[in-house]
């Protein structure tokens, strides 16, 4: 039974970068990007976990200059589309131009779900550089569907080619996904995608829920490597989509081999839903906070769950990694 074509974005070399504390080497990126390309992955994302210019004290320093990593990926990708992520406020138009010069063909411009208007210049620049441009709404669980729709339409008005609803905290239940993705699909005239995190162990189920209501783009990573409890495990997702009857153009054995032979040996730890990553989803906290929270918990002698719960109460958004230290300091003083 044919259910139509689904476009897959592999972000092992971007979201997965969080899980290896941004320590990817040129050799690793070349090997994984080449493997993903040969397996038939359409979009291959390479950047610091927090996007272009994310290398910092706040988010963690990259072991290798990301432009070297983007160039390495560009050299081995034959059919896929080399993609980068840019978060306005962290990366700039100058960073985007340099990434394009290194070979990036598409950019996902990511903002908090209510702040799309900070991305207008970046989307327009991407289009004038001839790149594909995605508007990527992070932490979508924090806004009601009407708000997500309003912000998606802003992205569309700036010239974005695609919209993503991102569950950056891995906090959504399948009904939350259906409500938001479905509303955006109805409201915009461009394709819609969904980016999941597995904090509540729902990444694959939520991805299927997004497809049910009309999404045609999905994200995943090999072995689920990513921030928090990780992303949708792409090799498993390809298999599941095959079973449902969707076309992905990806060779199942080849993507399984990339995951097992190339990515698994690079992992710093198994991508398991331990207590703290589960709490990210439960408290609705940005997934990239995980490793920073472990470090703060150790330094201030606290339970990481208490820090995450407080961050959730304070409604901290993506990029506010600095507030982990603030919360830990205030909790330790009590």
């Amino acid at each position, binding site marked *: 039974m044919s259910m139509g074509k689904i476009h897959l974005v592999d972000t092992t070399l971007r979201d997965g970068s969080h899980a290896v504390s941004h320590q990817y080497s040129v050799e690793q990126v070349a090997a994984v990007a080449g493997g993903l390309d040969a397996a038939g992955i359409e979009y291959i994302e390479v950047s610091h976990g927090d996007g272009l*210019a994310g290398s*910092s*004290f*706040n988010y963690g320093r990259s072991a290798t200059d990301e432009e070297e990593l983007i160039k390495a990926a560009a050299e081995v990708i034959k059919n896929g589309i080399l993609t980068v992520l840019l978060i*306005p*406020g*962290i990366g*700039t*138009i*100058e960073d985007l131009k340099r990434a394009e010069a290194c070979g990036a063909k598409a950019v996902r411009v990511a903002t*908090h779900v*209510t*702040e799309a*208007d*900070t991305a*207008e*210049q970046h989307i327009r620049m991407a289009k004038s550089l001839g790149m594909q441009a995605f508007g990527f709404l992070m932490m979508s669980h924090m806004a009601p569907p009407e708000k997500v729709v309003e912000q998606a339409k802003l992205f569309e008005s700036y010239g974005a080619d695609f919209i993503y609803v991102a569950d950056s905290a891995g906090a959504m239940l399948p009904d939350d996904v259906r409500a938001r993705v479905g509303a955006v699909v109805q409201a915009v005239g461009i394709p819609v995608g969904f980016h999941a995190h597995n904090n509540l162990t729902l990444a694959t189920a939520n991805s299927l829920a997004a497809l049910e209501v009309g999404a045609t783009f999905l994200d995943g990573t090999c072995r689920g490597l990513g921030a928090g409890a990780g992303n949708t495990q792409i090799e498993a997702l390809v298999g599941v989509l095959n079973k449902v009857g969707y076309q992905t153009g990806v060779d199942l054995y080849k993507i399984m081999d990339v995951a097992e032979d190339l990515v698994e040996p690079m992992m710093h730890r198994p991508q398991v839903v331990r207590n703290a990553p589960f709490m990210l989803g439960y408290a609705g906290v940005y997934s990239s906070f995980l490793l920073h929270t472990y470090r703060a918990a150790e330094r201030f002698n606290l339970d990481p769950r208490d820090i995450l719960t407080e961050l959730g109460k*304070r*409604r*901290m*958004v*993506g*990029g*506010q*990694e*600095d*507030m982990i*230290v*603030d919360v830990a*300091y205030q909790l330790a003083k009590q």
Partner: protein
Amino acid sequence: MVDKIKVAVIGPGNIGTDLMFKILKSQHLEMGLLTGIVESEGIQRARKMGINTSIEGVNAVLQDPDIKIVFDATGAKPHLRHAPLLKEAGKIAIDLTPASIGPYCVPCVNLEELLDEPNVNMVTCAGQATVPIVYAINKVASVTYAEIVASLSSKSAGPGTRQNIDEFTETTSKALVQVGGAKRGKAIIVLNPAEPPVMMANTIYVEVENPDEKAITAAVQMMVNEIQKYVPGYRLRVPPIIDGHKVTIIIQVEGAGDFLPKYSGNLDIITSAAVSFAEKLAQKLIRKDVIA
């Protein structure tokens, strides 16, 4: 003998109106004119308060020879046009836009050096909040790298900041180096839409050659006291945490609530800095007048 210097504000938006309220409280500044280019809420409010207003923009300022200091709270493009006109007319411009024609002014760091400049730029709110701390640490510990993260409430970030968010990070980074003295600088801005709105928070990370905890802590505390003289809501939330050569500090800025709400500490710190610089200028001009 003159006891107050007459000033004008161009741009009757949030920043311009907050400036006006602060000028009205000043001992050395006389709120001579608020000018815009259309009838607006800001103009009407000022008029009701008995302030001289105009919708002739910069021309109204040029027509009054008694106005000596001009705050420009419009935008980068209008300021590029205003700057040469004001200079020709012999008026000192305090630029609160991203135009950055004149040198960066961070009062508690370089005020004295700038009193003869025809035009100074007030950097950004994050620059006003963080550059002094970097400067203070650099004096005692030699800063090789400074990185700041400014979190603002979404409500306090106007369309100008949103549409030119790169300018905000680029200008702040430059000021960390040029005024703060760091060898390299990086700035990050995050907008948070939480309700009730969050207070402006600034995290400052520096990498230093000489991580002397005592000297750094004392230098930071002294600078915080200095800034509190013109921004009473400026507070050290997390005092220096030293990890090897890395120092982490978190600052919170609560606004004075003159016109803008208290969560707009980011706007308050830049208007306070601008008025504080103008007061120093005015005192200098008054002294000149006495001597003449």
